[in-house]
């Protein structure tokens, strides 16, 4: 394979590299760059919300900001950083392979993602501004130029960028699936896979099966926009100046179904790897095998299956048949079953552990708490009856920011601190790391919990100026600027992270090959791992992924003294 001839030129080593570690780092850097953009958008949104009379942006730009913040954060930061970034970095190391199954495809997937990012950013500068129909891009708003200014060129670029994203993500998913199923080293049975790799496998399966729905929807939406077809556009729409549109017989609900058939599983594509990272860190810093490895794996599979059949809970109030709504409500709250198992296993993994509360561990413990809060909040929205009140309110905003925002970002940071020594060869600064943790978790938890309270007060989301209404509780309204202050603090706190990472790349304390005393295979490779991952032979697996005994700790490749597998 490619490890036999190492790349020599700058281009082949760092730009068009086949090496999964280089590609992983490329993804991570791109994702962090996009995160800065997404964060700045969020700050502008928060400024407008807190001080609406100052009108920092216009109403139409505000909708563009909301749309692009959602799209960038979900697809171009979390999907890209957590799944594409860490997946590429860790999967071959975890399964004991020299590289991904298809290194060329892997390189290609990154270089398809780059133009997708550029198109997304570029769409801000076209006439009418960026797409403004929300990250869900519901037609007719997203299909008709007359409906909202951003539905012109901006929406077209949005769709093209998403198409490229899907192509890239599918290539990545194929690679993950094949590598995990087929490129495992000797002795690495499925039940010896680290939990993080299990979550990547499940993410890849969900990605392969669910993303085509969005592809199909995007193709049909493009035809509706540019060829005058009526896949999603009903008869009799009237716009001032244009008159009655010629469209016939389509239904916007169809798009919503197709979108959420992807959209809901996408949540688990993001959250499951975050939980996987958490399990890895807790095992390494709790020095204990995670509680219920097998029940966790089965629960993850169960979540993956359920995620494909519950999409309708995003549409309780959409006007679909109420009996279908009741079905979706029943199966949606069934997701509590696998998730409470995972939650119990996360907390249970601390029982009888030997915790070292270092930076990665702090983030991992934060994930447990955020997942608990986010998951419990989901019950209010999964229950159709209470969703009638909470739908499209700040409760929803708070909920999904806790689950796919806080959980994933904490895991992303935790993962970066945890594997930094492996890929850079130096440790990050502990004091700065802990400072960063506190500057992250306090504002994050506070702002998203306050959003739940605002949602309880009935404040609707995606409003340019919420003060237009007087029904919400005055205290709920008064929280607006406080959430914004917290958001600014959160953003400022990330400067510590940026400084820590950059400083540590050059000045960090040199790290050994296994600084945390962890057991999975990546810690048996040198730090930083060379091209081909292991300088000599690929390790052979003899043990469970987390063999922390009472009298010692054994990596997966250590031969069992008693000779048992």
């Amino acid at each position, binding site marked *: 394979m490619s490890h036999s001839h190492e790349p020599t030129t700058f281009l082949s080593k760092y730009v068009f590299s086949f090496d999964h570690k280089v590609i992983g780092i490329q993804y991570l850097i791109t994702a962090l760059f996009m995160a800065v953009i997404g964060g700045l958008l969020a700050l502008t949104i928060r400024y407008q919300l807190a001080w609406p009379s100052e009108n920092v942006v216009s109403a139409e730009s505000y909708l563009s900001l909301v749309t692009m913040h959602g799209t960038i954060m979900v697809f171009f930061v979390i999907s890209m950083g957590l799944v594409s970034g860490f997946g590429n970095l860790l999967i071959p190391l975890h399964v004991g392979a020299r590289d991904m199954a298809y290194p060329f495809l892997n390189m290609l997937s990154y270089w398809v993602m780059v133009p997708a990012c550029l198109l997304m950013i570029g769409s801000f500068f076209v006439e009418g501004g960026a797409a403004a129909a929300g990250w869900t891009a519901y037609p007719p708003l997203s299909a008709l130029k007359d409906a909202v200014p951003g539905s012109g060129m901006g929406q077209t670029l949005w769709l093209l960028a998403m198409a490229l994203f899907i192509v890239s993500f599918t290539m990545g998913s194929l690679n993950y699936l094949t590598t995990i199923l087929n490129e495992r080293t000797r002795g690495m049975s499925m039940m010896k896979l680290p939990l993080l790799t299990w979550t990547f496998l499940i993410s890849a399966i969900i990605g392969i099966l669910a993303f085509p729905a969005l592809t199909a929807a995007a193709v049909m939406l493009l035809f509706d926009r540019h060829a005058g077809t009526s896949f999603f556009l009903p008869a009799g729409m009237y716009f001032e100046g244009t008159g009655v549109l010629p469209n016939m017989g389509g239904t916007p609900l169809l798009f919503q179904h197709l979108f959420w058939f992807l959209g809901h599983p996408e949540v688990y594509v993001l959250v499951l790897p975050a939980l996987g990272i958490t399990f890895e860190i807790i095992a390494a810093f709790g020095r204990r095998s995670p509680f219920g490895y097998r029940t966790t794996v089965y629960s993850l599979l169960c979540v993956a299956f359920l995620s494909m059949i519950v999409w309708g809970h995003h549409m309780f109030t959409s006007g679909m048949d109420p009996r279908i709504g009741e079905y979706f409500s029943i199966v949606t709250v069934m997701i509590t079953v696998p998730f409470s198992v995972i939650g119990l296993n996360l907390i249970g993994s601390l029982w009888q552990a030997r915790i*070292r509360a270092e930076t990665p561990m702090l983030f991992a413990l934060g994930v447990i708490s955020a997942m608990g809060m986010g998951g419990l909040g989901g019950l209010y929205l999964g229950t159709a009856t209470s969703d009638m009140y909470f739908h499209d309110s700040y409760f929803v905003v708070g909920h999904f920011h806790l689950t796919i925002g806080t959980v994933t970002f904490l895991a992303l940071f935790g993962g970066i601190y945890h594997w930094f020594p492996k890929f850079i060869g130096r440790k990050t600064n502990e004091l700065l790391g802990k400072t960063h943790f506190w500057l992250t978790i306090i504002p994050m938890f506070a702002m998203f919990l306050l959003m739940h*309270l605002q949602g309880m007060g009935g404040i609707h989301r995606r409003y340019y100026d919420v003060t237009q209404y007087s029904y919400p509780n005055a205290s709920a309204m008064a929280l607006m600027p406080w959430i914004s202050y917290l958001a600014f603090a959160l953003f400022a706190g990330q400067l510590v992270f940026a400084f820590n990472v950059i400083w540590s790349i050059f000045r960090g304390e040199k790290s050994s090959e296994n600084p945390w005393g962890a057991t999975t295979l990546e810690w048996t490779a040198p730090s930083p791992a060379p091209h081909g991952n292991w300088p000599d032979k690929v390790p052979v697996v003899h043990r469970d992924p987390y063999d922390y005994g009472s009298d010692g700790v054994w990596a997966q490749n250590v031969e069992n003294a008693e000779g048992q597998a």
Partner: protein
Amino acid sequence: MTARSHLSAGFLALFFVLLVIAVVGGFGFKTWLPPVASEHGAVVDKVIRYTLLTTGLVFVVGHLILAFFIVKYSRDERGTAKRLSPGVEARWALSVAFGMSIIAEVGVLVIGMPAWAAVYGEPSPDDVVVEVVAQQFGWFIRYPGKDGKFGACRPELIRRGDNPLGLDKKDPASADDIIVEDELRLPVNKPARIVLRSLDVLHSFSVPEMRVKQDIIPGYTGRTRFVPNREGTYEIACAELCGLGHYKMRGLLQVMAPQDLQRWLSEQVPAITYIVD
């Protein structure tokens, strides 16, 4: 490493305890919901209170255990990492999962179902029927008049100035239809069936005090049904992103005594009067 690590663990445990206090205080000791004003809304509130109580309990217990474990097991000694057998671990997992699913399904089925059925259940002939038509960015309210029938509306007849809904003059049922903007008036304690239409994009008819929220799909006729049980003026909001004036799509709902509504209706001029040929 050890002392600093203990300190961090202690801080985190303290943080979780403070979080529990803050959340219980924030959600438990203040009513954030706007006062309910409809019959099924009381049930919606019951579901919310039930969920608050149960999830609150799970949250508190979970976080206290988390905090306790962090402090208790945060020691660097080579203790005995006791491990349960996979069977015992699975039994733990299953019992927790079973408990949680009971909690969740009770909320959905036992408490929630009646309200859901009331909103979406079969219409009754006694319902007060009013049509609400959404357009970027406002609401048109149409009453069927004495004949109880809505006249036909055809989008090609829409004219902003005099015929905003495209009411067909030729339809005899149109003759007594009354159209007003942005102000919906309903009688108190009578089931109201709202027929929902949209002229352009998706909108959502949301009245927080009534605990009503229903998306409106252009090209289709939707409905929602509720019984307002408190007189007063409430705000109608659009809850589905509909364009740059989304946040400005404010309407009013006035719940009044039936005789007051009758009087008001009798004072209104039929919409057909204003239509220019």
